[in-house]
């Protein structure tokens, strides 16, 4: 088995807000991320798939196909969007880096032919990232 990782980038805005809480509580917990006008990041997505190397092609997965899947399932939906307002899963879910990693996993799981999704890593910035390995 070999692991293969493909990167993709998207830029998006978001804010952190739990509607079940008061404004004071949101500001206390989320700090400047609770600014309702939003703010943005250049996100980097690292998707790692696991599989056997095909004896004929030498590939775990066709990289071009993987790139197209990332583009179709994630980047075209998230890039240059306001995550809270324009991406359905974040209408009711705080778009933290952790939750983005989980939602990207759900979008990709089962969609990569011939390989198993191993890890989704989302960098919000170079010094902060979240990893999700699916339900263990």
């Amino acid at each position, binding site marked *: 088995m070999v692991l293969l990782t493909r990167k993709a980038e998207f830029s998006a805005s978001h804010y*952190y807000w*739990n509607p*079940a*809480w008061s404004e004071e509580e949101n500001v206390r*917990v*989320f*700090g400047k991320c609770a600014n309702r006008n939003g703010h943005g990041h250049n996100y980097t997505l690292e998707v790692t798939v696991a599989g056997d190397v095909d004896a004929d092609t030498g590939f775990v997965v066709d990289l071009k196909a993987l790139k197209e899947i990332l583009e179709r399932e994630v980047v075209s939906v998230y890039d240059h969007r306001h995550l809270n307002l324009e991406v359905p899963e974040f209408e009711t*879910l*705080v*778009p*933290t*880096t*952790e*939750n983005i*990693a*989980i939602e990207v996993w759900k979008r990709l799981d089962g969609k990569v032919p011939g390989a198993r999704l191993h890890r989704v890593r989302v960098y919000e910035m*170079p*010094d*902060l*990232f*979240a*990893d*999700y*390995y699916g*339900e*263990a």
Partner: protein
Amino acid sequence: MKAYLTRRYHFSASHRLNNDAFSAEKNRVVYGKCNNPHGHGHNYVAEVTLSGEVDPATGMVCNLADLDMFARTNLLDAFDHMNLNTLKCFANLVPTTENLTIEIFRRFQSGFNHAHLERVRVEETGNNSFEYAG
């Protein structure tokens, strides 16, 4: 749902690798240029990985503000722009990056209780890094 959160912290410090139990000659052989009596320095990066269930209310493994506050007090204020050899934790321990990684792990493990500590990884330079997971 269990997720992993990693934060990277930057600090700069000096050190000298020298074991008092060795002869001067042996220290030079074992530690090479790291044994320079006047020390030398690095821009370190400490990568701290925490894990836990994502809180449904916050969407977080742990609040970054809590993590940053802990790191400020227990990592950056302790090590940034310091000579590692002068610190209490290295009074009887050679401040290699292996030992520094273990020391940082112990500080987070004993003092930060908002999430499970998975791993500490320290980059001494862009080409050298060390990991400790307990």
